[in-house]
């Protein structure tokens, strides 16, 4: 005896709606996951990742001893040829007020604040930091073309915040080496 199976019911409107919802939810989750993966991968490849260590520093003695005394601020050539730039932000200027860096060299910025929260931004780049008093902010960079850029403070730091604009000058690598021959900490602050 043959049995005829009744044909499956066409999907009800609620079923179709539910399927549409599920499909969309899957799309949404996939898009979001893709964004996260792309961000992580791009960050690794372009070396744009948050600083990997937290370092604290004593605020009161910042100018008395240690890494951020005024004579130690500026650009220093490391034994391996890279450059470390040390700077402080304060109400209402950066020291060095003009930072000097070479092209085509790995550069590490080590910056802190000597009083309140400041910002540190090199316009036209993604070198963008918060300076929180008591903590050292660190970022690595690589400049390819010589030139001059502004370095404004971008966080409200008091009544003189609008006047807190530093400068950074990128010079040719060889010119930098020549200047470094005569002094251990370079800047263009004069």
């Amino acid at each position, binding site marked *: 005896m043959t049995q005829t199976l009744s044909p499956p019911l066409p999907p009800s409107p609620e079923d179709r709606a539910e399927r549409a919802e599920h499909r969309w939810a899957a799309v949404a989750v996939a898009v979001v996951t893709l964004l996260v993966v792309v961000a*992580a991968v791009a960050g690794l490849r372009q070396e744009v990742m948050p600083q990997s260590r*937290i370092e604290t520093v004593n605020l009161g*003695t910042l100018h008395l001893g240690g890494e951020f005394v005024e*004579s130690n601020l500026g650009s220093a050539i490391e034994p391996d040829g890279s450059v470390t730039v040390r700077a402080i932000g304060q109400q209402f*200027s950066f020291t060095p*007020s003009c930072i000097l860096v070479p092209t085509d060299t790995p550069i590490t910025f080590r910056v802190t604040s000597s009083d309140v929260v400041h910002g540190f931004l090199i316009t036209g780049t993604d070198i963008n930091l918060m300076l929180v008093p008591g903590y050292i902010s660190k970022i690595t960079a690589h400049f390819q073309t010589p030139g001059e850029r502004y370095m404004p403070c971008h966080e409200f730091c008091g009544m003189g915040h609008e006047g807190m604009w530093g400068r950074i000058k990128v010079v040719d690598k060889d010119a930098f080496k020549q200047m470094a021959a005569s002094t251990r900490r370079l800047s263009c602050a004069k």
Partner: protein
Amino acid sequence: MMRERPASEGVGWVPVSIGMTAAIAVASIIVGFGWLPLQQRGEEFRGVWDAICSAAGLVQVSSGTEQVVQADYPTTRIELTPQMLRNPSAQSIGRGATLALRCTMCHGARGLSKADTPNLAGQYPIAIYKQLMDFKSGARASAVMGPLVSDLSDADMRDLAAYYAYLPREAQPASGAPPQIVTSGAPVRGIAPCGSCHGALEVKVGAAWLGGQPSDYLRAQLKAFSSGARRNDIGEQMRNVARAMTAEEIDAASRFYADRP
């Protein structure tokens, strides 16, 4: 999940939600604390545990003990806090008055000088204290002041600061509109308005009240900061400003403050 299923059917909401949340958290933690730090070029970790601890944010003692270039000139040795020298006692002010007797020849009987020496009456106490300390340590060079403060103790200097802060400032009529360098500074040259530290807008700890100071004195100090001859400003904050000022701006600012109480 939209349909009206009896509660017994299918995986429950609770285990699924908790499971998914936990899975995402655990996966992110493994990636963020384990894998990503180790992938970073240029970071030297002393092993996986060090990488994990760093990613977690464990504070490290600043390793910057590589060679610190020391200054070949004396810098200011004081630690300033905004709470310093508050509420001096009457005895402190009295002792300061006695000590100040030796200062009157140049700085005037009531802290108001007739020469180009700065007026000290009504000055912020921290400013006076800091400058005295810097004269003594040599951070601020002065052939005149150096010998005069060499026998002052720390308590003496606090008393002097208290006394001069207590004296009334000289009342003077204000003269004209302030020059732009004073009200607005020069932003892109990194000069904030003078008043943002020197009292008209805010008082930054250690900054001096400039009103009524002799214009020659102010001009000389700004020029000294600009050339680096004066170097006792913490973190080069005044040197940064003075270097960026033009001679005309230094002149205009000095004359403005000299005429203002």
